Structures are given as C-alpha cells and as structure tokens.
C-alpha cells in the first residue's frame, strides 16, 4: 500500500472532518420536540385525529422506503405493494396462530425479507424500465398466489383476529403509537444506513453506477441491501395498515396505487434526500384531506401537481429549500475543516 504509507502525521493532525451541518443542533431539538408532541397526542386529541395520522405515518414510511430504493439504489420499483401485501397477510396469519397482532408487525417485516431474498434474484436480472415492469408483475403474481390460499380468505380477504379483547380507545392509541414508531424507525433506518460507509457507496451508485464499481463498490450487494431494507419497511407498513383497518382485502393491499402514492410523494418532496419523503408525505396528506370531497378532480389535480414537480422541480421541494437555505435535517455528508484554506 504505497500511497497510504505516504500519509504524514502532519496532515493527519491538521485534518478535521465534520459530519454535522451548521443547523443540525437546532433542528435536532425541534425534531425531538415534535416527536414528543406526536407521542403524547393520544392523551390530548380526539381519536379521529390520531386515526387519520396513522395514514400519514404509513405514507411517510412507504415513501421513505421507496426513496431509499429509487433515490439511493437507483432501483425504480413499481412493485413494493408486493411487500405491503405480504406484510399485511403475515399479520393476519400470525394472529390466526395466536400471536398478538401488534407483535406480529415486526414479524411481518422479517417475513418480507425472507420473501425478498429469492425475489431479488429474479428482479435483479432486469434493468431500468424492465426492472420497473418486472417488479409490478411480481407483485401481481404474489396477489394471485394469495387469493388461492383459502385459509387467509381467498379473493374476498379476511378479518384480523385477536383484537376484540382490547378496549377500543386503547386499541386506537396502540395503533397510533405503532404507526408513529414505524415512521420514525424507517427514517432512522435511512439515516443510519446512509451515514455509514455503505451510505456513501449508495450515493455513489446513485450518481454513477459504472464508476462506482470501478472504485471498488460491490454495486449488486449495495442494491440488494437496499432492496431488503425496503421490503422490510414496506412489510411493516402493510402490517400497520392491517392492525389499523382490522381486515385485509387482496385487491386493495396489492394495488399498484400504493406505488403511485410512493412515487408521487417522493417526486414532489425531493428524491435522494431523507427529508424529501417526509415533506412530500405531509403535502400529499394535506391535499388528500383538502380535496377528498372533489372525487375524480382530486386525482386530476394530484396528477397535474406531480407532473409540474417532475418538470420544474427535478429535486423536489426539499431540493429547492436546500439550495436556497442549505438546511439539512439529517446530515449524511462529510465537511472538511481545519485545513490551511
């Protein structure tokens, strides 16, 4: 190792590399306060508020997982509903076996990883557009397999067992907390993953795949890690959807609409930023609440916003904010200080 021997102690002593952005102390305090408020919400707010927020948390989790997949792994999937569905059905199946449904949610994530390993062998043989279409087809195949299993209700779906002995208020609060934990866990997972050495590799893969492999990055392995993490996150989200709705319907849970939501949220929020899906999910959720009464016009408007964002804001709203203010809630970069300059 000729080059590393040349590293002088002088250079080592003067070098100081910082991982935090200027604003990150303040933003960390603000975020902790926000989490504390959200966690305390079931004690102070009506259950219709917390029930609605469960949907927001699920959207944040799903969008974060899609952002990890497409924004960092370069894997544009339109088939993550495969794992939402498998996760949802796992919870149903575990509950039938007597597992407490809330405890079945993390187990659903594990189930999805187990399914994702062989699925990735298949899907990774495809590239680009073919990968996108292929993942959708795989999700459909999973749906068709599930509706053939009579013990989980076949084509008409099934209710969730093991929830009737819980008080309704307590159940609402528990579901809310589990959903909040899911959203926080997915964001934390993205942050920790991207902050490490693997994260820097993923960002390199995102920017230039050929060059990434020529600097020593095992591109396939990096993508597989991202795919498995994303499957786990979507599976847990599917589980939360099930404990929230108390039943599962195969057509709804395996619907490609989930992918449309994820893509929309990430595109308007900002692809390739941890903050992007967070911001995008809040905006999407707001639009949903505001426009829910307008029927199909609501979808037309969503489509128009999505197109406008893709055309004029290629890096989403967070990309715009970041360029203007330099703000970063989850700094994953390296900043060199302490040089002579």
């Amino acid at each position, binding site marked *: 190792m000729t*080059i590393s021997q040349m590293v002088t102690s002088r250079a*080592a002593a003067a070098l100081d590399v910082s991982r935090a952005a200027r604003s990150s102390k303040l933003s960390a305090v603000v975020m902790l306060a926000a989490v504390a408020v959200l966690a305390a919400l079931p004690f102070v707010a009506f259950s219709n508020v917390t029930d609605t927020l469960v949907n927001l948390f699920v959207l944040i989790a799903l969008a974060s997982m899609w952002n990890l997949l497409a924004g960092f792994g370069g894997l544009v999937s339109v088939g993550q509903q495969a794992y939402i569905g498998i996760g949802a059905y796992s919870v149903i199946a575990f509950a039938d076996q007597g597992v407490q449904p809330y405890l079945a949610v993390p187990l659903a994530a594990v189930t999805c990883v187990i399914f994702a390993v062989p699925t990735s062998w298949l899907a990774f043989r495809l590239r680009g557009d073919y990968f996108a279409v292929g993942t959708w087809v795989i999700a459909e195949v999973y749906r068709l397999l599930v509706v053939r299993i009579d013990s989980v209700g076949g084509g008409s779906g099934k209710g969730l067992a093991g929830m009737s002995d819980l008080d309704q208020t307590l159940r609402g609060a528990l579901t809310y907390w589990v959903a909040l934990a899911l959203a926080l866990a997915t964001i934390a997972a993205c942050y920790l993953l991207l902050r490490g050495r693997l994260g820097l590799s993923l*960002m390199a893969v995102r920017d230039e795949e050929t060059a990434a492999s020529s*600097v*020593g990055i095992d*591109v396939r392995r990096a993508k597989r890690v991202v795919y498995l993490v994303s499957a786990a996150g979507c599976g847990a989200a599917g589980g939360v959807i099930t404990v929230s709705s108390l039943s599962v319907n195969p057509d709804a849970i395996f619907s490609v609409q989930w992918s449309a939501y994820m893509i929309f949220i990430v595109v308007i929020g900002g692809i390739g930023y941890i903050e992007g899906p967070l911001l995008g999910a809040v905006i999407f959720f707001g639009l949903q609440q505001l426009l829910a009464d307008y029927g199909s016009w609501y979808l037309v408007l969503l489509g128009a916003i999505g197109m406008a964002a893709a055309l004029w804001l290629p890096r989403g709203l967070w990309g715009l904010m970041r360029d203007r203010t330099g703000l970063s809630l989850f700094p994953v970069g390296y900043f*060199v200080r302490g040089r002579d300059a």
Partner: protein
Amino acid sequence: MTEQALLHLDGITKRFGRVTVAKDLTLSVRPGEALGIVGPNGAGKSSLFAMISGDLRPDSGAVWFQGRKVTDVPPHARTRAGIGRTYQVPRPFEHLTVFENVLVCAHQGAALKGRQAWTHAMEVLERTGLAELANTPAGRLALLQRKRLEVARALGTGPRLLLLDEVAGGLTEPEVLELVEVVKQLHAEGLGIVWIEHVVHALVEAVGRMVCLAGGDVIADGEPMGVLADPKVRELYLGGGPETGLADEEDRTDEEGA
C-alpha cells in the same frame, strides 16, 4: 512469466460484430513499470483498459494480475485487488463533494476506515491539487478539475497498477507538465502505470516503455523514442488513411471501439 508480471494479458481477443478491438493480444507489465500506449482511434486502447479493469469481458484469452487469473473477476473486486482506473470521459459522483468522491474510494477500494480513510483521501487531494476544492460538489467542477478528480479517485483506491486514460487531453502546457511530475513521482514510489495518451510528448517524459496499438494488436513495443521512430508507427500517424492527425483525435471524446 505470469508469476513475475504485475499485469499479463494472455492472447486476448474481443470483437464487436465485425470490428476487432483486440486480436490475440499479449502484453505484460512488470511491477513498478510505467508503460505508455499510443495508437490511432479504433485501435482498441480504451477497450483494452475496459478488459483490464473488468468492465468488458474478452471473447477469449486471459487477464492475469499479480499472478492471479482475474478474467472472471468483477470490476469492484479487481479494484480491491489493486487495479485503479480513470475514465477518458470523466464520471464523477456529481452530488458528492470532491472529498467524498475520493473518500468512497478509500473506503471501498483501499479498505480504509474512519480517520485513516479521511487522511488518505485528503493526502490524495493534495497531490492532485484538489485540496482547496474538498467541499465542492463534484458536479460543479470544470473539465480539467474533473480530469484531476479521475486521477484522485483512482489513487484513492490504493492501487498497485494505475490505468490512466487520456488524462492530459485538453490540458494547458503547464498543467501537462504538472501532471507529468505527479505521474513520475507515483512511478518513483513503485506504482505500476499504464497510460493511454495522445499528448505524446507528455508520455515520452513520464514512461520508460511504449507500446503502439493498431487493429487490436501490438505493432511496436520498446523504448519510447524507438517506438515513435518505428517505420510502422510513423506510417500510422503520418501516412494515408482516414484517422491519422493527432489534433483531430484529441477532439474526439466518445469511447473507442464501441
């Protein structure tokens, strides 16, 4: 002989349809040797690099690195084994800073961690004159800085063999001299270097041996001035044929042989 060689190409052949970019080509590089490669466009120079680094698989023949057959080894593993390359058309990680561009090489290519990786990355940036730009996103760099970053990334992987693909093209004369100094210094430290270059005078300064490729094969091999004086080489560059002018070739940026 494969045991002693740093790099040994054993009769490699590669065709794209009717175009042959390597025809039963055999070539060896000793440890610490600096080899220059010249040749007209379409001679198969960049394809040769692609086969050494693993981006391209030869149809037949074998690539040996440090006594190990690497023909079936994927690019990232070859880099980890000690082959560092640059691209003719720079391919920076645009949304990463210059420092991060090199740091990821130190992590993945040189298997360094933490502070060791930081110091190594910074050291490489100082050598390549990019230290001042450490925190600049690579997407904002001008072409010359991008070329330097290519060299910096290759060095970041801690190579034993450095493949330079037209890194002097488009540089001003003082910058070429600066680059030659860097290459000579790396060579003096024992690094094996293979350098494809159209800026022939830079090559003559920096390498001890030169090879001329044409039609996918070696047509001259030896001491640089001797190769340049070879009648076959002179004919290639100065004689008839559609692709002869040096200046004309420098303007071309697309990958050869593709």
